[in-house]
């Protein structure tokens, strides 16, 4: 199967799962944004998704995409380290055009993974999981209150968002380059679109997290 036993095939898997995850994050932040306008609307979305069959199918596909992306990430990085060999340069200079993120995708991914672990414990384990188990789930707003009532939640989330921002600013155009859709003109365009996409999505996540923290610590009252 060329998707597993050729370098380009493996990169295609990375690229397609990565783009899918970006799409998921985009919907995720838009749904969170609903809470900015009123928690009752947010509750409506939580209820609509809940543990219905379509939400479960969606979650399963999402989890599958994540697992593939992560397995291939470690696999590719391991192969790359082997190809690079053990001898390091005494002196090496990074050309100015090389993005820092592009050389640190695994590290950024691992930071994202840690952040996600916490995030799933704080929300998924309290909302969808109990419902699947036939128990009574916590309401979305209560889960938000519990998580963002802690002062340490916000800084951890902001670190996670930063890592994702770096990961996506490179990942976005890299994914289009990988699936063969780029050329000299479009590399610049994809880089520009990716930068804005990552900035808007991550900026919105950050605004939401800051708002929830202020709201649930009674610092602001709206």
């Amino acid at each position: 199967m060329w998707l597993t036993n050729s370098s380009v095939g493996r990169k295609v898997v990375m690229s397609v799962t990565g783009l899918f995850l970006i799409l998921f994050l985009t919907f995720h932040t838009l749904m969170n944004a609903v809470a900015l306008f009123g928690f009752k609307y947010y509750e409506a979305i939580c209820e609509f998704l809940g543990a219905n069959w379509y939400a479960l199918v969606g979650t399963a596909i999402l989890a599958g995409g994540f697992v593939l992306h992560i397995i291939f990430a470690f696999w590719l990085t391991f192969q790359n380290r082997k190809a690079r060999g053990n001898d390091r340069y005494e002196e090496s200079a990074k050309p100015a055009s090389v993005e820092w993120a592009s050389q640190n995708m695994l590290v950024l991914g691992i930071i994202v993974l840690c952040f996600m672990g916490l995030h799933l414990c704080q929300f998924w384990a309290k909302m969808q999981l109990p419902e699947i188990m036939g128990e009574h789930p916590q309401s979305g707003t209560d889960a938000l209150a519990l998580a963002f009532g802690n002062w340490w939640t916000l800084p951890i989330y902001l670190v996670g968002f930063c890592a994702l921002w770096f990961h996506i600013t490179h990942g976005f155009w890299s994914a289009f380059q990988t699936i063969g859709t780029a050329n000299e003109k479009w590399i610049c365009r994809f880089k520009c679109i990716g930068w804005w996409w990552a900035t808007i999505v991550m900026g919105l996540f950050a605004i939401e997290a800051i708002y929830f923290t202020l709201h649930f610590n009674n610092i602001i009252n709206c």
Partner: protein
Amino acid sequence: MENAISFNIKVWRQAGPKEQGRFEVYQMQDIPTDTSFLEMLDILNEQLIEQGKEPIAFDHDCREGICGMCSLYINGHPHGPATGATTCQLYMRRFHDGETITVEPWRSAAFPVIRDLMVNRNAFDQIQQAGGYVSFNTGGAQDANALPISKVDADEAMDSASCIGCGACVAACKNGSAMLFVSAKVSQFALLPQGKPEAARRVKAMLQKMDELGFGNCTNTGACAAECPKQIKLSNISRLNREYICAKLAD
């Protein structure tokens, strides 16, 4: 007067593929700035021979930027600090009086050191042998109007064909990937009608050979294109991916 400079040169010395290597520092006095980098190494080697020591082994041939043999990693850059130039096109005026210049071989698992600054780039020949050619007789040159090729395609094919197979792209890559080289070799044919009949077979065979030889997976860092002496463009890699994916989907 800055017409001649004196400096230290720190060179990687390694007696053989399996030997342990180390750096040696040599002092160079009053080297005219018009000396090319390789001529400077020739001067150093003459001095070493006079002192009864082993000269430094390094690859070179044409000394005019067309053969791709020269391959030194100088002060942290493959082919040194100049852009769009090979090591043999580098002159001492790029360096300063009193500086220490670090010279290393390409370091990548697929390019093992043979001796000192010389590495084995046979892997590139093997990739080329796997499909980097047109296997049928294309006949004599046709009338120019018989086979119209757009100026854009002709230019791009020509640019890709300027790859000299030096391996700087692999040397620069943190993933030890040969994608820029392979993409240039695939693109120079994929863009032209003469290359089209064998395009699918070629891209599959060359890529398979590249993977087999243990080169890494490209993460699109772009260090290769930034360091390439022939300024081969990164977009070639996307074309290689496109050619490969289409060939595989067609199977």
